[in-house]
C-alpha cells in the first residue's frame, strides 16, 4: 500500500497512520485509527471534547515520550519514515511544529521567543534573524501590535497575543508539518480570520493538521476532515462532503449540525 501511494504524486502522504490505538494506562482513548495526511493540505480533525484529538497530535510529534502512562500501537510514518524508529527525536520534532490550545509565551523577550528556534538551528546573523522574526510575527498577525516592544517579556503579553506569539514561534521552526490544537481558543474573531488567511497561504509550503472545536473553522480551512467521536474515527472525507454528502454517517450529520457535542 505504501508503495502504491508513493508512486502517485497527487496523493503524496506526509503522515500515514495505520491502526493507531492510544492508551493512558489501560484505558484506550483512541482506537484503530487509520488515515493519511497529504502533502500541502490542511487536514481538519473535528469532534467533541474527549474524543482523542489532542492525543492524536501528541503521537505525531512523539510527545508520548513526555507523558507518563501514555502508549500507542500501530504504524505512523512521517515523510515516509516510521516515527517509532526515528533515531533523532529532536530532528523529528524540529520538523513538526505544534501550537497548543493554551498559549505558552516562554519567559524570554518577544524577539527571543521567535528567534529561539532559528538560533537552535545555528542561525547567528542578526539581519537574517530580524527578517525571520518579522516575517513570522506578521504571519501570526502580531507584528503591528508588538513591533515597538520586541524587547519586553513574551510572557507579559495578553492571552490572545501570547497565542499568536506561540504561532509565530511554531512558524519560525519552518516546519514541514504544523499541528494546530484549537489555536483560536484565546484569539478574537477578527484576528482569527487574519491567521486563517495566513494558513491558507502557508499550505503551499507546508502541511497543516488543524484540530478544532469550531466546525465552521474546519469548513473554511480544511481540504479534508476527520470526525473523531469518543476514541473512534467515524469517517474521513473531503470537508465539503462532511456538510453535504447524503451518505455521511448519522453521527457526523448530527455533530456538524450542532445537534449534540
Amino acid at each position, binding site marked *: 500500500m505504501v508503495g502504491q501511494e508513493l508512486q502517485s504524486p497527487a496523493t503524496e502522504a506526509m503522515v500515514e497512520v495505520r491502526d493507531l490505538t492510544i492508551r493512558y494506562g489501560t484505558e484506550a482513548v483512541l482506537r484503530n485509527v487509520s488515515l493519511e495526511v497529504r502533502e500541502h493540505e490542511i487536514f481538519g480533525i473535528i469532534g467533541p471534547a474527549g474524543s482523542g484529538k489532542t492525543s492524536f497530535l501528541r503521537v505525531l510529534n512523539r510527545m508520548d515520550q513526555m507523558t507518563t502512562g501514555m502508549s500507542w500501537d500501530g504504524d505512523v510514518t512521517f*515523510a515516509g519514515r516510521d516515527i517509532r524508529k526515528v533515531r533523532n527525536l529532536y530532528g*523529528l520534532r524540529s520538523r513538526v511544529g505544534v501550537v497548543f490550545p493554551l498559549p505558552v509565551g516562554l519567559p524570554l523577550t518577544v524577539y527571543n521567543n521567535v528567534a529561539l528556534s532559528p538560533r537552535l538551528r545555528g542561525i547567528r546573523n542578526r539581519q537574517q534573524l530580524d527578517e525571520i522574526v518579522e516575517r513570522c510575527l506578521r504571519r501570526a498577525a502580531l507584528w503591528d501590535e508588538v513591533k515597538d516592544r520586541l524587547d519586553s517579556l513574551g510572557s507579559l503579553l495578553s492571552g490572545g497575543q501570547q497565542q499568536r506569539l506561540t504561532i509565530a514561534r511554531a512558524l519560525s521552526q519552518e516546519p514541514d508539518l504544523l499541528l494546530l490544537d484549537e489555536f483560536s481558543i484565546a484569539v478574537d474573531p477578527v484576528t482569527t480570520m487574519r491567521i486563517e488567511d495566513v494558513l491558507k497561504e502557508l499550505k503551499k509550503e507546508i502541511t497543516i493538521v488543524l484540530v478544532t472545536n469550531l466546525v465552521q473553522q474546519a469548513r473554511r480551512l480544511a481540504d479534508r476532515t476527520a470526525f473523531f467521536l469518543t476514541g473512534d474515527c467515524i469517517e474521513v472525507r473531503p470537508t465539503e462532503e462532511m456538510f453535504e454528502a447524503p451518505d455521511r454517517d448519522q453521527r457526523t450529520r448530527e455533530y456538524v449540525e450542532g445537534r449534540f457535542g
Partner: protein
Amino acid sequence: MRNGGDKPGGPKAGPGANWDRLGASWFIDKGVQVLVFVGGTSAIIFVVGIFVFITREGWPFIRDTLDFAEFFGSPRWNPTSDHNPTYGALALIVGTASVTGLAMLIAIPFSLGAAIYIAEFAQGRTREVLKVLVEMLAAIPSVVWGFIGLTVMNPLIIDMFNVPVGLTVLNSGLILGLMAAPIMTTIAEDALKAVPDGYREAAEAMGATKLQVVFKVVLPAAKNGLVAAVLLGVGRGFGETMAVLMASGHSVNLPTSVFDSVRALTATIAAELGETAHGSDHYRVLFTLGIFLFIVTFIINLLADIFVRGVRKKG
C-alpha cells in the same frame, strides 16, 4: 518555497530530508545526559558509602555486646566504667525527642504564620525587608545560638521560673525552635508563592475573604510543600548538635518537666567520640547511636515521601 506543481519529488526530498541524521548537538545531548546521570547516581553512592562505613564501625558491637532491651529500655548511659559499663540509650533518645518536640511546637506555628504573612498579606517594602531578615536569621551559625542559650537564656530562665539550672529542655527547645523557624519559613513561603495567582483570583472573585482564600485555597494547594518544610525542621532538630550540646545541660537524665537537663544523641557522639580508643566498645556504641540516628532520619524522609506521593495520586 515548495509549490504543489514544480516541487522536485515527494516529502522525502524536501528541505528536511536530513532531519534523522545524528548531528553534533544530538551527541552533545547524549553526552550531557550521561554526565548528569553520573552526577545523580554519585549522590546515591556517597549515601550508601557513608551508611556502609558507620555500619562497619558499629556492627561488631551490635553483634557481640549490644543488648537491645538495655539499649532502648535503660536510661543508664555509662560506657566509660571500667568494671561494669552500661549502654542504655533511652535517656539520650528521650532527650533528643523532647528537645525536638518542644522545638517543633514553637517553630511550626511561628514559621507557618510568618510564611503566610510574608506570602499572602505583606506588601511591597515590608515584604522585601521581612524576607531579607528571615534569610539573615537562617544564616546565624548554630554555635552562636548555643552561645545565646548559654549566656542569655540560662540566667533568664533561672530568674523567671526560679529554678536552679537554666540549661534545660526548655532552653534548648526554644533555641532549636528559633533556629529551625527561619529555614522552615523560607521553604513554606516558597511553597505558598508557587501557588498560581489564578487560584487566588478565582477564589477572591467569588467574594471569599482574604483569610478564606488562604485557608480554603492556598494552604491546600501548597500542602505538600508545607509538609516538606515541617519535616525539614524535624530533621534539623534531630541532627542539630552544637546548640543542643550547649543549651541542654548535657546531663544523662529522663526529663519529667521542661526544667530538667537532658542529653541528646548527637551531642553525646560529638562530645565523647574524640576521647574513645579506636575500636573499643565505647567507640563502637557511639557508631551504633549514629546508625540509629541515620535510620530514624531515613524513616522520617521515607514517610514524607510516601505521604507526598499519596497526596499527589489523589490530586
